[in-house]
Structures are given as structure tokens and as C-alpha cells.
């Protein structure tokens, strides 16, 4: 079963990431029964059908605007943000906005090209669930990768995980 880093620990997770191919109309889609993240278009087409299903989340691609999801956040327990490439840094801003602007308390999951050397930044921006790139790491490497969450112990600037900058948190000698 695929692994997920949740609150700093490895857990099994079976949620499907539903990807729409171009020929599929979101309205005509039959929805999987198990835990699933659906793209924005599918969410919008089936919103009412999803009501009451806590195992359905929405995934946003890096060019999607989190603002468009804002009205629905109350009904969602999880949002996944896709990294099409690990060098595409838009999801960091998206996660930070979900947490700090929209007060989203549910799960924010990193999906896609998710590599251990970015875990620390993800965690700082409000991701509490990290799904490492499929097939990239062995189980032993995944265990090792948890160390990356702790790369730096006292960062300078405020972020979601640490809303006060160092100059407000610490008494620094002159």
C-alpha cells in the first residue's frame, strides 16, 4: 500500500488521485467508492453528490487558484496540491494561503513530484500530509527521509508551522 507521511510519521494510505483525461467529461464520470481526491472540475460537477462523504478530497494542480475552492472549504476534510515538477513552487503559496488566509484546518497533502529534499519547506508552508513520489523511495529510504522534516531547527522567518519570526520568538543577544 502507498505510504504517506502524516504528522511526521509514515502511514499506509490508499486514497486514489483521480486524473481526468481529456476525453472524459467531469459530469459523466462514475465516481470511485473508496477514498479519493478528485480534480477541481469533477468536484464542481458533483459537489452535491459528495456531500456527507468525508473520504472525498479535491486536488488542485499548480496553475489552479485556491481562491476558487475557498467557498467549499467548509465541506472538505482534505485538499491535495500537486507538484507537476518539484521545481514548480506554486503549491507552497497555495498551501500557505489555504492555512493562513482561509483558515483551512483539514489535511493538506503534497502529491506529484514530491521529493524528500523539499519536505522541510512543505511542512513549513502548511502541508501536514506528504505523499512521496510513487516508486522513488524504498521502504528503508522512506524511513530515512523523515529526517528531512527536521533539516533546520530554528528557522528565521514566520511561516504556517511557526507563525512568529525568530526575532519575535527568541530573545537574541545584541
Amino acid at each position, binding site marked *: 500500500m502507498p505510504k504517506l507521511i502524516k504528522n511526521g510519521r509514515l502511514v499506509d494510505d490508499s486514497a486514489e488521485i483521480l486524473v481526468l483525461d481529456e476525453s472524459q467529461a467531469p459530469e459523466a464520470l462514475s465516481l470511485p467508492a473508496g477514498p479519493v481526491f478528485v480534480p477541481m472540475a469533477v468536484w464542481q460537477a458533483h459537489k452535491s453528490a459528495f456531500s456527507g462523504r468525508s473520504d472525498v478530497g479535491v486536488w488542485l494542480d499548480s496553475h489552479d487558484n485556491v481562491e476558487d475552492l475557498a467557498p467549499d472549504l467548509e465541506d472538505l476534510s482534505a485538499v491535495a496540491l500537486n507538484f507537476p515538477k*518539484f521545481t514548480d513552487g506554486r503549491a507552497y503559496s497555495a498551501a500557505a494561503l489555504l492555512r493562513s488566509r482561509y483558515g483551512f484546518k483539514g489535511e493538506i497533502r503534497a502529491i506529484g513530484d514530491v521529493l524528500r529534499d523539499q519536505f522541510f519547506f512543505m511542512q513549513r508552508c502548511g502541508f501536514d500530509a506528504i505523499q512521496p513520489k510513487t516508486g522513488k523511495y524504498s521502504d528503508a529510504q522512506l524511513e530515512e527521509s523523515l529526517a528531512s522534516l527536521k533539516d533546520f531547527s530554528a528557522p528565521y522567518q514566520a511561516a504556517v508551522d511557526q507563525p512568529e*519570526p525568530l526575532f*519575535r520568538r527568541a530573545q537574541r543577544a*545584541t
Partner: protein
Amino acid sequence: MYRYDPYDQRIVDERVAQFRDQTRRYLAGELTDEEFRPLRLQNGLYIQRHAPMLRIAVPYGLLSSAQVRELARIARTYDKGYAHITTRQNVQFNWPELKVVPEILAGLATVQMHAIQTSGACIRNITSDPFAGVAADEYLDPRPWCEILRQWSTFHPEFAFLPRKFKIAVNGAAEDRAVIQCHDIGLELKRDAAGEIGFRVLVGGGMGRTPIIGEEINAFVPWQDIITYCEAILRVYNRYGRRDNLYKARIKILVKALGVAEFKRQVEEEWAFGKGGPNTLTEAELTRVAGHFTTPAYETLPSDDASYVSQRAANPAFAAWARRNVIAHQQPGYAVVVLSLKDPKRAPGDITDAQLELVAELADAYSFGEVRATHEQNLVLADVKQSDLFAVWEKARAAGLATPNFGLLTDLICCPGGDFCALANAKSIPIANAIQARFDDLDHLYDIGDIELNISGCMNSCGHHHVGHIGILGVDKNGEEWYQVSLGGSQGNQTSLGKVIGRSFAAAEMPDVISKIIDVYLGQRQPGERFIETVRRTGLDPFKLGVYGEAAVTERKQNA
């Protein structure tokens, strides 16, 4: 200068550990080339023509003598005995092996240095006025602000993977010596009518393949808000900057596409959420950081030292150096010394390990143990007593560090170019050295006077050719190296972008071309007129005529 406290030290130490592990995983095949690339770049490590190149951060150009000695040790131990001062006040080594880089970083950490964010699509080293704190025309010291912004931008989690690199410069003097109009964000320290400190904020300037002069986005951001304001700019850029085309990914393209008014609207809409939040700077933090940039323990001295006056009268060579490389200081009896790294026998900006050791020694003996690096690729001793200048000169001269050419034609800016850089289209160092060899007569150089000649080996323009009075750009034509010449560029308060004068030249033609341009200036100039002023007054035509001849100019006009 700023000294680390345990927090700063821990961050740098943790970085060394992190990069050591990343390098280990790369060498073990756990990280692919593609995955390792941004990680090493954000640690200043490039793969170049001959070996990796390691760029070390020199925050806003300030170095202690201990740091200079460590750079000398690295040059000796891991390089071929020299270092290179870059056009962003940093230091580069051209020959370290990849596997020893973690070891080099560990050594740097012992003297409070690192290579963090010296490359990659992130916020780069903050640059500033190399004469900060001592310049006679300074109204506010930019250094505390640079340090505050350095800390804020170091490992900023949201802005580690921007569309492209991001450069911030801060200036606090009447004359801009930090090229703030050609930065992604240019900050000009100022006071408002009530005497409060804040920043005029420019955005979207830059050189590169699409040179653009930055535009004002806000006339006055109070100092408390400068981090939240910069964060708003960065967030808009991170979200909406282009990522589909590397050549259109800088913030300047976004600002141009939206228009500065719309860009400002988006930034200020974003700012409304961050303004007043936890990132608002506190008086306590400003006081803490500014406490590191106090005035040194100056002696009370007469404004003109008698021995300095007589030494100049007695020794023409010393007088020549003093005239060019010694600059007025805020403090009576003190001077700012520029140690020229433009000895024609060396690549511009290069300095040997022995020279670095000497610079450290001079700094300890004569300048409160501090050194500055300039974006014009020289070093500066900022606080030298006039009565010590002769001793400084004698020692610097013996080491080849007293070429009396600061601000002259041979004090050119030059990127490493095709000899080292994998991005270059053409070599730049041999062109620089050939021009320096052509203009080896000091009297002639002094007659030509203040002039800035900048050479880039490709359009990434590390050599700042767009803002050179004379700019030279290396271009590739069917696999051959050619050089395009532009005139009329300028840095500083009257920043302007140079215009190309015509067809490009082969390397061997370049000294003649520069001679012809200089001859036109000498023929055209009015009394007291500097090169750039003549170009602005006459326009390019007389220079085109001088370089290409009557026939070529006529033909060009007919074809136009």
C-alpha cells in the same frame, strides 16, 4: 559587521549537514542529476567547463579578516591558488571537486560563511553599496536592512522554487552604488516628510537578455513593513510569474505584461493580508541588528594629515594611486581605499591566496579588520587613517594590489566568460586583458578619465554590459566568438541601457575598436566632459563613424 549568534550559527551548521547528506545521496545514485541540480545550485555549486564552480555568499559585500583568511585557505587547499570576486559581491572558486564541497562549507561555517542561495531560482544574496557606513554622501546606512532581509530570505519556505532567480539590492546614499534600478527589487532608503525611515520600492528591473529598468511600485513603505511588502511582491510573483519559458520567467516580464499599475494593485491587495502581521519588524530587532554596524573606534584626527600631504608631494606614483584609489571618508583624517583587482596580468576580479592573506593583514593592521567586495570586482579597505595610506600602498603595491586605475578604462567589469562558464557564448577575460594591454599608459588613461567598460560573455550579462558606458557582449555566430559593442549605458542615479553601435567584431579587432571609440571621445569632448556625458550629448553617430567609417555608416542609413 554582523556577527552570528547561536541561532545564525546553527542554521549554517545545519545547512552543512544537510548538503553533506545530499551530496552523499547524489554520489550514491539516490538523487538523479536533475534532482540534485537545484539543490546544489541553491548552494552555489555549478557544473562548469573544467570542474564544479562554487560561489560563496558575501552578504552585501562585507568580509572580516578571518573570513578572508579562510578564503585564502580554500584557494590554496581546494583550488589552484586563487579566488574570483563576482559582480554581485560574492566570491567564486573555479576548481573544487564536488565531493569536497561539504568539507569546504564546513570550513566556511567556522568563520560564519556559507554558500546559501548564491544560485538557483530563489532569493539571492542581497547586495548594497560597498562604501556603506563610510561614504560621504550617505544618509542612511543600508547594512542593517540588508542583514534583516538576508535573515528573512534565508530558506524562506514559500520562495525556494520561484519561476527564476530573484535579486534584491539596497542603497542609502545620494548616489546609487548598488545598481538598484537593475534589480528584481530595488530598495532606496529614505525619510518621509515626518522624518520616518522607509523605502522607495522599485520592481522589475534587471539585465539579462531583456534588460529593463525597474519601476517604482511604492514611493514610501515604512521600515516596519518592508518584509511584509517584499513578501507580497514575492507571493504574487511566485504564483503568477511565467514558468513555461525560462527566458520570460523573471519578475520584470510579469510586471511588463501586467503593467506596473496592475502589478502594484495585486501586490497591495496581497499586502493588505500580511501588513501588520507577525513579520512586521520591531524596534527591538532593528536595534539588535543595527547594533552590529556601529561606528568603529575612530581617533580624533585633523582632516588633512601632514605626512600624507608630503608623501604625495614626494612620490608621484603614490600620488597617482591616492588620486584614483583613495576616496573621501565621512570621518576626518580617514580614507576609503580601493584595492584594485584589475592588474592587466590577471583576470579581472581574480585574487591569489597570498594576496588574500595580505588583504587580511592590511585589514587587521589598518582598517578595523574588515574588507568589502564591490560589484565592480575590487576590494575595499573602508577605514584607513590618512597617515597609514603610504604604508598600505607600499604593501599593496608589492603584492600587485595597487594598480592606480579605480574608475578608469582598465578597471573594467568582466564575467569569467567562456574560459570557465558553461553558459558563455564567448570568452571575456582575453578581451579584457587585450584592452588593458592596449591602454597601458597611465597618463593616457588619466586623460581619458572616468569611464566604465563592462564585458559579458553571453546575454545573461553577469558582466553588466547593458549598463557599461562601453558594453561588450560576446555572441556566438555559427560556432565562432564575436563581440557586439554598445554605448551609452550607465549605472547609478542616471541608469540607462546601452545601444548597440552596429555589426559585431572578432576578438582580435576589439582593442582597435575601443581605441577608435576613445579617439572619437577625445576629439568630441568639451572641457570637463566625461565619456558618458559626451555620448549622451552627441549620440552614437560620431562613434559609429569613427568605428565603421563613412562608407559603412552611409550604407547603413540607406538600408535603414
